[in-house]
């Protein structure tokens, strides 16, 4: 049985999409069948990475009950697959769709939770995906909490920004603990000099393990090359020998062991 992994964060701009896309690509390289879903309905982004013909339906339609999940998924194996199959489900980036998704009532959100929960059966059991990755919206809003409740493993992406650290602490305590999820922290955009030596790295991990009271799965250094790429292509796919790709590889292994 596969796993559903959600990437979430307290603040926006922490690198959830970058890490989601590259984590998915890492598992595909390992021969796993992966399904990557854009659950950030307020700021959809995966359509910009996967320049593929859109499916007739969006994830918005699936949550609205207008179609089943197989109608939403786009097979990108030919463009991005290696040894495993790669599917993506996109959120509708049209302004009207974003506005519509932000004005849903509680009853709709309750039904959306039910539909997200049923993905475990449809994607993992029936369609035999090894990993389903949710790229969620930041903060404590309906769509992201629904995604967290429906996931097996939650990865909280955080930067070294003080307000992000404080917010993440509060969020994990008041939200993740209540839903009893396997949770790990991924520290992103860490200055390379902080991780320069083994000793410094150990000190960094020890400090943040106690700050968050959760395991720090990986500290991803800030690479100018990655920033320069600007999310226009899947970095780890194009640069398999880059230290960023190697870091993602280590993260993927740690998640497998969770």
């Amino acid at each position: 049985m596969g796993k559903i992994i959600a990437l979430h964060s307290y603040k926006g701009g922490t690198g959830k999409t970058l890490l989601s896309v590259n984590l998915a690509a890492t598992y595909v390289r390992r021969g796993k069948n992966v399904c990557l879903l854009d659950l950030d309905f307020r700021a959809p982004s995966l359509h910009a990475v996967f320049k593929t013909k859109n499916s007739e339906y969006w994830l918005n339609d699936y949550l609205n009950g207008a179609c089943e999940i197989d109608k939403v998924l786009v097979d990108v194996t030919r463009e991005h697959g290696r040894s495993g199959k790669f599917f993506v489900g996109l959120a509708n980036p049209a302004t009207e769709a974003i506005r519509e998704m932000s004005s849903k009532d509680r009853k709709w959100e309750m039904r959306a939770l039910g539909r997200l929960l049923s993905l475990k059966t449809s994607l993992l059991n029936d369609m035999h995906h090894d990993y389903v990755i949710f790229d969620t919206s930041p903060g404590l809003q309906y769509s992201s909490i629904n995604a967290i409740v429906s996931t097996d493993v939650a990865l909280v992406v955080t930067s070294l920004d003080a307000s992000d650290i404080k917010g993440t602490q509060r969020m994990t305590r008041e939200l993740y603990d209540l839903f009893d999820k396997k949770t790990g922290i991924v520290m992103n955009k860490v200055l390379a000099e902080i991780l320069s030596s083994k000793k410094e790295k150990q000190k960094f991990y020890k400090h943040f393990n106690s700050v968050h009271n959760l395991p720090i799965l990986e500290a991803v250094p800030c690479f100018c090359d990655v920033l320069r790429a600007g999310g226009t292509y899947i970095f780890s796919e194009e640069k398999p020998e880059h230290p960023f790709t190697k870091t993602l590889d280590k993260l993927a292994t740690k998640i497998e062991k969770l």
Partner: protein
Amino acid sequence: MSIYKKLDGKPTRLLEKIKENLERLNEKMDAMIEIQKHGQRVNPEIPDVLDVMTLLSLPDHLRKTAVTLCKLGEATAEEVAEQTKRARAVESGYLNQLVIMGYMKKERRGRKAYFYVEKEG
């Protein structure tokens, strides 16, 4: 003695009937406790919405039951207990409490009671 006669003298059926009645009695007692706690009966005809924000506000023991039922869609107390690894009687109590609070519905089919948040379609 008359019930025994009505049930064709089969002791197993008699015990099952007693168990069924005890369970109904338990449910009624749960309802009474809940009414005492809240001062008034929550109208089960107007269900409250069991969304994530509500799930967050529930006490830990009820949240576990509610999330499990959301995952299963529709289930008996026994099926919920299998998932939560708690006793069937415990889950039955929690599910009935959630029904009283207006977050779930209950439907008897034969001798089994099924709980659900919302019917499909």
